[in-house]
């Protein structure tokens, strides 16, 4: 293997994404901050053929990271590298090949498909736009993609409203895969599906990933789903990556108190509500201009210096990082 092959497929460095809260006069007159930092100084790598899970509650910035990697949002700071090429500031024209390489599967498949297009049109359009194949090969490509996603090929003629949630998600997956993408960002692709259908789609992801060695960033609020599919998991809390580790390691030896709290909710679901400690305190207010650790109010390990600055990432061991001053006490 040449060193070039060993370079990560995707490298995210010090990513900062912010959204404007107030504009113009309101911003000038308001005492509060003008921006909300949805993603704050986040760095991680994704290797080829790897499934990286991004786990966090709503508002933690996990979806924003996914969309920023696809350049659907513009980062305020930081670098996104794909195969060693910095795509952070590429113009639309030079970005086009990366648009093909980076595909997304959204949470709500109904709103990610055009209601007036048949499945055939939804799948054929990107093939033609990116000149993936000759026009006379399009039908074969679509049939292939549908069968891979576990749908009969006669679904080509269907419109989105004629399909169930599980079937729609299969179409969305088929569409992403026709591009032979280098990286798929899957944003909560099973959270809107019913329990009995969820297993089908998770198994489909697992099969396709293994068969084609696809690299996936899998965004989910459900640690159990992440454990099932992901090789590594990054835990987000209000814009900060607070811990990242191989899946086994994260479950057996979590270091960040927030990761521990999340894992604690899993134990409860197996048993009852009795006899466990509640997480006290209110969640961090992302619109406040806090300099300290964002988990401070809820944290059982907090000490005075946690108030002064958000802890930077430390290596617990190779491949396992945590952003907590007090992780050794945990």
């Amino acid at each position, binding site marked *: 293997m040449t060193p070039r092959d060993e370079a990560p497929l995707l490298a995210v460095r010090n990513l900062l994404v912010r959204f404007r809260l107030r504009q113009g006069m309101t911003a000038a007159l308001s005492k509060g901050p003008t921006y909300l930092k949805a993603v704050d100084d986040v760095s991680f790598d994704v290797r080829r053929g790897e499934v990286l899970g991004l786990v966090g509650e709503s508002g933690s910035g996990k979806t924003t990271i996914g969309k920023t990697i696809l350049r659907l949002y513009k980062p305020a700071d930081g670098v996104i590298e794909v195969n060693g090429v910095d795509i952070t500031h590429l113009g639309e024209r030079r970005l086009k090949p990366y648009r093909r390489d980076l595909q997304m599967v959204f949470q709500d498949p109904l709103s990610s498909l055009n209601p007036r297009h048949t499945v055939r049109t939804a799948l054929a359009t990107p093939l033609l736009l990116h000149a993936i194949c000759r026009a006379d090969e399009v039908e074969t490509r679509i049939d292939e993609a549908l069968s891979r996603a576990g749908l009969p090929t006669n679904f080509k003629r269907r419109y989105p409203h004629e399909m169930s*949630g599980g079937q729609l998600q299969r179409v969305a997956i088929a569409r992403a895969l026709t591009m032979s993408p280098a990286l798929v960002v899957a944003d909560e692709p099973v959270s809107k599906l019913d329990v*009995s259908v969820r*297993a089908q789609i998770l198994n489909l992801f697992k099969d396709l990933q293994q068969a084609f060695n696809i690299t996936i960033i899998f965004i989910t609020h459900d640690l*159990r789903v992440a454990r099932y599919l992901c090789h590594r998991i990054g835990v987000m809390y209000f814009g900060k990556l607070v811990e990242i580790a191989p899946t086994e390691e994260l479950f057996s030896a979590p270091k960040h108190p927030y990761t521990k709290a999340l894992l604690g909710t899993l134990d409860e679901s*197996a048993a009852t509500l009795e006899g466990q400690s509640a997480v006290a305190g209110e*969640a961090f207010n992302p619109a406040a201009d806090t300099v300290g650790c964002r988990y401070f109010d809820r944290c059982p390990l907090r000490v005075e210096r946690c108030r002064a600055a958000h802890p930077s990432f430390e290596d617990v061991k190779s491949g396992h990082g945590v952003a907590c001053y007090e992780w050794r006490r945990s």
Partner: protein
Amino acid sequence: MSDVTLSVRGLDAGFSMGGSTVMVVRDVDLDIRKGEMVGIIGESGSGKTVTGMSILRLLPDNAVTHAERIDFLGTDLLGLSAEAFRELRGRRIAMVFQDPVGAFNPAKKVEWHLKEIFERSAAKSPAHVDRAKNWHGAAIQLLKDVGIPHGADVMHLFPHQLSGGMLQRTLIAMVLAFEPDLIVADEPTTNLDNIVERQILRLFRDLQNRLDCAFLFITHDMSIAHMLCDRIAVMYAGRIVETGPTKQVFADPKHPYTQGLLASALALDTKTERLKEIPGELPSPTDLPPGCLFEPRCDFAKPECRAKLPAMSDLGGGRGVRCVLYNHA
């Protein structure tokens, strides 16, 4: 039985659309006793929400509802006029929905909502009249009980200034003040994050302990039903397919659908290499299978399953299942 708060027999509900009527709930029987929490479990499209809504007459105008009997504390709900029903809902039945935002008047502060509840319930007893006079202190105490320590500040906020978890807490405080005889909760924690969800579920447990009322809890989440409910009814494609005490149903599910649902729901709780799937999808209410509704997806399907819909078999001990595998009696 005299302690039955709500008793439903033979409930059908559906919607008329473009000249035809599509039934989405069929032949539902339900009993909820005082102090008991009954869960209706089902996936989307199973009819669980429509069941709750039709009992409360909250369905839109194009809805069609029939029932043999709906009895609430000795009152025949089917015979009530719209006005009498609204009065009953306002005094004795509370609802908690998935989206707490809709339960609040966006133009009014939190204190207005709490005050309204205290004033409305003043008619209940002289003690309630006193309570209504001192509603402010009582409201702050209730907010504290549901985990909002700085209630006096929160009272001055508008609903949009509170997070989803805070709103759901405030709503539960209102339910506590209201002291209803029946609470219907429809997926009250689905929009919340894991940690907040646990906090709210714990509050529901407290509600149940404090109020001693009948509780109908509608959810798609097996583990939540397991935590909270005394008895559950599992719905599939508009019908109850299995019912019984929660512990027994979880320990030994009888219907193949319940078995599959439990396996899928609990499979992720432990580390696993391969999830067990239930093949296929829920049937559309306009295109139901001729016999057993689960037959096309069932591992145990026999020719007779396609012939006709199995009746509910009584397995004793409060358990019932709608499946030919148990049709021995």
